[in-house]
């Protein structure tokens, strides 16, 4: 059996006494698209942020590609990774944020090359070529000299996807990538994500776009109150929810 890309067993996380994750189990197979759905405050984003160690989980086991996130096991002890080692782990995981978080002081092209040049020590020429390829792929090859503030939300999010892909990640995390967009711009971002899914990229997507989940996801997880309430094939789970909570959630969002 191959090792799953992401494996969470009983993951807990609290912020100052409030338990946001209360024992989450989740498995993401290689090359699959997993959608996390649920009401706000259910812990979807926190779980996603734990996967690339933007947040530190308090208890449970969290593995990416078979490796523990943020720790290394030596004997029967877990040693916390230092800044540089954590950075090494993160560089292999792409992340796309709800509010894009493009570097405002850099042009579109520099946004996409900075990680390659500064983190992966790639030659600027090679990085530029790769960045232009990716820009063409997300349909923005004429925008490389623009600054993020000069782009629409949808364009910014596509640049953000290109920026994450430039690092050659083995896993892509999307944190509500279309929630900050005007309705008519949602489609262009989802199209890029669908293309990416077709190339076999492993993706974990926190989303409120149920149609996207139904069409693209291999597995959907419904979180509520910090636990997984229901999971499975989206065509089954979304069409015939087994739990009353998911039923009521779907009736509100659909």
């Amino acid at each position: 059996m191959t090792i799953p890309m992401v494996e969470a067993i009983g993951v807990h996380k609290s912020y100052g006494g409030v338990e946001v994750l209360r024992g989450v189990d989740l498995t993401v197979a290689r090359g699959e698209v997993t959608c996390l759905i649920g009401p706000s405050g259910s812990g979807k984003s926190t779980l996603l942020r734990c996967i690339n160690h933007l947040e530190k989980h308090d208890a449970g086991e969290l593995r990416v590609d078979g490796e523990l996130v943020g720790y290394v096991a030596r004997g029967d002890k877990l040693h916390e990774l230092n800044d540089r080692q954590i950075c090494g782990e993160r560089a292999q995981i792409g992340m796309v944020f709800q509010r894009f978080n493009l570097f405002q002081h850099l042009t579109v092209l520099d946004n996409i090359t900075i990680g390659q040049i500064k983190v992966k020590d790639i030659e600027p020429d090679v990085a530029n070529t790769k960045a232009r390829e990716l820009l063409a792929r997300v349909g923005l090859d004429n925008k490389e000299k623009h600054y993020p503030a000069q782009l629409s939300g949808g364009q910014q999010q596509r640049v953000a996807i290109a920026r994450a892909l430039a690092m050659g990640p083995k896993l892509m995390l999307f944190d509500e990538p279309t929630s900050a967009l005007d309705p008519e711009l949602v489609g262009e971002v989802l199209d890029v994500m669908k293309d990416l899914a077709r190339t076999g990229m492993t993706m974990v997507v926190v989303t409120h776009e149920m149609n996207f989940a139904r069409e693209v996801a291999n597995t959907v997880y419904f979180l509520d109150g910090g636990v997984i309430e229901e999971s499975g094939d989206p065509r089954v789970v979304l069409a015939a929810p087994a739990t009353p909570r998911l039923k009521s959630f779907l009736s509100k969002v659909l």
Partner: protein
Amino acid sequence: MNSNGDDAAKVVPVRHYGQWGASFGAVILLAMLIHTLQSKVPSQTGQRVCQTVNGNRACHPLMVWRFGWDVVSRYFFSSEILRGLVVTIELTLIAMFLGIFIGVVLAVMRLSSNRLLSTTAWTYTWFFRGTPVYVQIFFWFFISTIYQNLSLGVPFTNITFVHFHVNSLITAFVSACIALGLNEGAYMSEIARSGLIAVDEGQTEAASSLGMTRAQTLRLVVLPQAMRVIIPPTGNELISMLKTTSLVGSAGVIELYGAQNNISSSNFEVVQLLIVASLWYLIVTTILSIGQFYLERHFSRGALRTRPPTPIARLQSDIRGVVAKFRTPRIAKADHS
């Protein structure tokens, strides 16, 4: 349709009577200022000038500039003043570089999650902002009375590697740089901190998610964006520092103020030499302000959709605006026929 058959109505602009009155008053005051600046008065020495014109001998009092412009121009480019100006600029730049470096380090320490580091930074700021800079200047000037010798070695042991005599190491100029720089560090730390706080947390998260280390995130992502917030008050500090250097004149450094003071204490043209120094301070301030404008413009890239215009471009648009104001505006009127 209006009565004269014109399809555009004439617009009567609001009359700003208050503004006009105030502008008139300002013009009068300005004229009075110019008049007094260029006026001449009889010499206070009672000196008289006599001339023989067509065989008639006429005498009248010697007239001199009220503000002594001849004295001002005589000393304006004197070597003593220019040497003082160079020292002032050196002091300002060295103290500011030291201050900015200390300020950024303190600001990063202040924002650290380590309580010891943040408290240390806070205490530094508390101390150096809480005591007068004049006192600090004299403290460093007299440091050799407290520490005669300085050595580099292992703390709390007798092992030393290098040994200095404080008196020869810390000259008056060095002590002035240390005093002004350390003091400035306290103010700069607050400015740098406000800049760092102003950068959205999402920028740090995005940098982390690309695998940047904390140092890289700070250097490549956070600081360049913080600069936009940091530069305007830093320009203010720089200009303020230029003039604060005049305090070290009393601690043995002959800078611009000290130089004019030396001259006027021998020729008693006190006000004229103060004018010489003030004009130089004004000139340097003007140059610094221009530099600040272009620096701000450079770091505003990406933050605004369109960059602020240069002063020349702004002047052009001002002229266009004034010209347009004197044309009678006309608004096309809807045709109701």
